[in-house]
């Protein structure tokens, strides 16, 4: 009896927190449905007078080519960096060469550099290899700056795999490839999910690299969204509708795959 009452009580703070997390989304959608002259700070909590989708249509027209670009950038970037991270993590956790324990922290430190400070050499590098302005150049950048985090997640995940499994495979005569493909890869699906979601989100939301590395035909949606605003008059209703559209893919990923993300974390990835 006491038990159930205690349980019921728990939902109150949970609901309050849920409100805290949802309020910004409410404001975004609410404003997205309003007409231009309805938008002002004083009336931000009022519901729109009518449920018109004009703003969303207008925003979609402005953003749709860039949404395609975003997918072209983000899908390969997430898959390739997850694959790379998986191999790195495997080698650094279970197939250590001499010096692996020095290489790992060196790779990891890359996670911490402030990206704003390295834009100039980055652009110069891309220019010199002929990738400036292009989608492959941006994908490469995401993959490279994704190496630290993806390697970290996979390495820590693989570190929890019992050594016996590897030994058993070796006794069976498996080499590095077959050990990886037969033993570790199948076990690492939860880590793959975590890394794919992580990299998908990071690359989707990136603005800084995209704005300096891609040209106007290749801009992802974040740059286009930012461009919608311009530097003077801003139509907040269309802007908010666009913001919602731009956030939709990552939102859907979290809504539908969020539980795998947490499950992946629980099963060892990202614990440390």
């Amino acid at each position, binding site marked *: 009896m006491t038990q159930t009452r205690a*349980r019921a009580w*728990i939902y109150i703070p949970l609901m309050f*927190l*849920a409100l805290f*997390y*949802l309020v*910004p989304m409410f*404001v*975004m959608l609410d404003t997205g449905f309003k007409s231009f002259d309805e938008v002002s*700070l004083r009336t*931000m909590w009022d519901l729109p007078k009518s449920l018109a989708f004009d703003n969303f249509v207008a925003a979609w027209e402005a953003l749709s080519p860039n949404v395609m670009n975003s997918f072209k950038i983000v899908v390969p970037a997430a898959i390739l960096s997850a694959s*790379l991270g998986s*191999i*790195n993590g495997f*080698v650094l956790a279970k*197939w*250590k*060469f*001499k010096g*692996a*324990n020095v*290489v790992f*922290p*060196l*790779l990891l*430190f*890359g996670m*911490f*550099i*402030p990206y*704003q*400070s*390295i834009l100039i050499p980055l652009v110069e*590098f891309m220019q010199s290899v002929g990738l400036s302005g292009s989608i492959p150049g941006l994908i490469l*950048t995401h993959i490279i700056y994704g190496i630290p985090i993806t390697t970290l997640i996979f390495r820590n995940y693989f570190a929890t795999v019992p050594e016996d499994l590897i030994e058993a495979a070796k006794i069976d*005569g*498996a*080499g*590095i*490839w077959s050990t990886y493909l*037969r033993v570790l890869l199948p076990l690492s699906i939860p880590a793959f999910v975590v890394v794919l979601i992580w990299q998908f989100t990071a690359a989707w*939301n990136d*603005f800084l690299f995209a704005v300096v590395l891609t040209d106007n035909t290749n801009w992802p949606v*974040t740059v286009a969204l*930012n461009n919608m605003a311009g530097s003077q008059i801003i139509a907040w209703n269309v802007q*908010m509708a666009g*913001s*919602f559209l731009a*956030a939709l893919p*990552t*939102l859907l990923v*979290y*809504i539908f795959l*969020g*539980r795998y*993300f*947490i499950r992946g*974390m*629980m099963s060892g990835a990202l*614990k440390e």
Partner: protein
Amino acid sequence: MTVAVKESRRRKRFRFDKDKAIGLALVTPSILAVMVFVYGFIAWTLRVSLSAWKGLLPDYTFVGLDNFRQLASDPRFHIDVRNTVIFTVVFVGGCLIVGLGTALLLDQGIRAEGFFRSLYLFPMAISFIVTGVVWRWLMNPAQGDRISGLNLLFDKLGLDFLVNTWHATPGWGIAFVAIPAIWQMSGYTMALYLAGLRGVPEALREAARVDGATELQVYRKVVLPLIRPVTLSALIILGHISLKVFDLIVAMAGKQVQLDVPAIYMWTTTFDGFFFGRGAAIGIVLLVSVAVLVVPYLAYTLRQESGQ
């Protein structure tokens, strides 16, 4: 695959060394990439930070530590350091408290746990390019006739004591900027803690209960000590995020000295003012601060591991 297996069987004698070599070869591209894109670029930044470069085109005239000395006596940089400290304390503290709190609540075997988990986690999916303006509206500091945003909401709900000036609060505005950041990252912290809590064997809790411990004592004496490593790793992840905070502040508050942080100063002094030397110096200071935070942690965890 079969071929690979056969082959490795055939060459059993050499397998060991050769496989190690393959391992190294597999990691080499990553090592090279990081060497160029991380360490090479850091070296470049270091070189610029020791130069007189001001203006559009590179000028690598060596000026020693001048840029760093100027930062040391730059009142704007002093504000930056103070703001970063306040922001870090509020943001990291807030995430840990909210994250641990929600994780403990969710760990009570409630219904709809998955729903709440996803709900708390979703802000992480959205960048501040998208939500910055919303937060700017929500935290509008106006009161009286022009009251709006959360203040208006609080006022309507009779929660007047919560009405405040948010990030326009003189001197402490940056503390309020941490609220959206907590909104974004506390769900992630919750997930970390939840993973940690689920890793505590039920047998240990049972044993404590058998010994007569109350539920509260079970948490205090058994569970919390066991998830201390989670707190440490959360500290590192959140700490480095707060040192690099940039988008959020620009989106919410524009560029104003009162809410300035090193990453913004670096950006504006470099690209608004073309003080490349000074910008690079700020970048180096940031990197060193991150290193001070991270390197001991890395060393510690690696030593723990090899000790096991």
